């Protein structure tokens, strides 16, 4: 059996979540790799858009930032940030958003703002950037993150971006257009929301045990009745 780095594993599984024709709001790092992989394999019509205002990017090199010039050259379109957040995201033209954050909680809420109290934090993180609106308005959101206990508290210190708040009914009551987080892809497996919006373990990667996942999760993690073992990367 071939071995993969945790990053490679997460990238491949994230790529598999994308459908041909999806319009994806891409972040730097793993989401960017996952989108490029998907576009070169099963989703040739994937459209990659960036909060910098780039649509249909065809990067010829791996960009360090989401504002790299290689995203612009040979892109389909470039528009202002105001347009990308209104005409594209708020209007409902984005199928998929990728999110990350310092903390993800039991209901898929994400913290990218502070560890501790907002006004007197232990750590001040970079902040929302585009994630508050992506989490609200993309049809489907996926979270890619290493699986560590400190990253998966029962409740985030600060809810920068909405998952299912304190349950799916709360998100629905808010009237927000997007479908919320559909899956969390980690180096151990998949967490997916149940009918109440609570993240439950639905799949483990080959060789990973449920106990190992629980040990790296900050709340009593439910396991799906039909727990899957993921299909390994094919090369």
């Amino acid at each position, binding site marked *: 059996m071939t071995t993969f780095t945790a990053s490679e594993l997460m990238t491949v599984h994230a790529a598999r979540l994308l459908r041909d024709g999806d319009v994806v709001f891409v972040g730097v790092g793993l989401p960017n790799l996952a989108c490029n992989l998907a576009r070169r394999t099963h989703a040739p019509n994937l459209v990659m858009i960036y909060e910098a205002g780039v649509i249909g990017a065809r990067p010829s090199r791996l960009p360090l930032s989401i504002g790299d*010039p290689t995203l612009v050259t040979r892109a389909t379109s470039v528009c202002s940030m105001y347009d990308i957040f209104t005409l594209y995201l*708020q209007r409902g033209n984005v199928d998929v958003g990728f999110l990350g954050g310092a903390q993800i909680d039991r209901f898929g809420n994400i913290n990218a703002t502070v560890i501790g109290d907002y006004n007197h934090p232990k750590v001040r993180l*970079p902040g929302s950037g585009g994630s508050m609106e992506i989490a609200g308005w993309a049809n489907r959101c996926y979270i890619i993150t290493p699986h560590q206990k400190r990253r998966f508290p029962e409740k985030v210190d600060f*809810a920068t971006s909405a998952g299912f708040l304190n349950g799916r009914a709360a998100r629905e009551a808010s009237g927000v257009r997007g479908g919320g987080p559909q899956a969390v892809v980690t180096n151990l497996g998949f967490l997916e929301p149940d009918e109440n919006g609570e993240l439950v373990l639905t799949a483990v990667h080959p060789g990973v045990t449920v106990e190992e996942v629980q040990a790296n999760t900050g709340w009593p993690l439910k396991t799906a009745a039909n727990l899957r073992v993921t299909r390994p990367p094919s090369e």
Partner: protein
Amino acid sequence: MSKLCTLKEAIARHVHDGDCVYAAGFTHLIPFAAGHEIIRQGRKDLTLARATPDLIYDQMVAAGCAKKVIYSYIGNPGVGSLRIIRTELEAGRLEFEEYSHFGMISRLQAGAAGLPFMPMNQTAATALEQANPLYRRVTDPYSGREVVVVPALNPDVAIIHVQRCDERGNAHIWGIIGEQKEAAFAARRVILTAEEIVPEEVIRSDPNRTLIPEFVVSAVCHVPYCAHPSYTQGYYDRDNDFYLEWDKLSETPESVQAWLQEWVYGIADREAYWEKVGAETHRRLSVPPLYAAPVNYGEY
């Protein structure tokens, strides 16, 4: 009427202690040379507004120019943290106002449009709205539902770097256009820096490319390579190595002050800076040309 002057003159004339400054550009066209000139002239108590403060504001904060930052993402894009701003914020030595990107850009859009506020749909996330009292709500009179609103941002001065403009300040910009147009119209004064000053005929040959018109511009400065280590699409590449290097440089106050001494205080202007950067970096950041398809406006 020509508005050409040196960047030194433009900063002296249009950036005052206590001003709210918006040095525009989302990753692209960030006017580093202007930030360095502000540092050299020793401006104090500035409010530095930018969606992404980037290294330029990290450096200006390190130099003691700022009393406040207004932002939506204080990271070193693709690298990590802006160590100096983060340290100052955590220590309570720097005031701040925080938004999401959309909130920040909506503030500029309202300011540019002459509106008192801009509405935004709810996102279901309310923590930041509760933490920042400038977020408010109004009721949509058609549905009865609430929208979130932010107030207009009208900086005292915007600094905008462009590929080319004429000496009156009519400017062509392409590549990532972020919030340049909005910042220019929102601000009370605008300093334009340009890779090239061109005859107005060049600008008039492609009016759809002109995002900023002369009559919002206060000063026009010819500053090639103004954006380094950021970039100018079609002119030079982003210096990703420096973005990575800053992450190390900014680990200690001593190394930051040494860097400022060597690269800002010890340098006369951008021309001297670019020469000091050196031929190898010039080569590394050079970009082969790739031209847009022709566009025919017609001789009407």
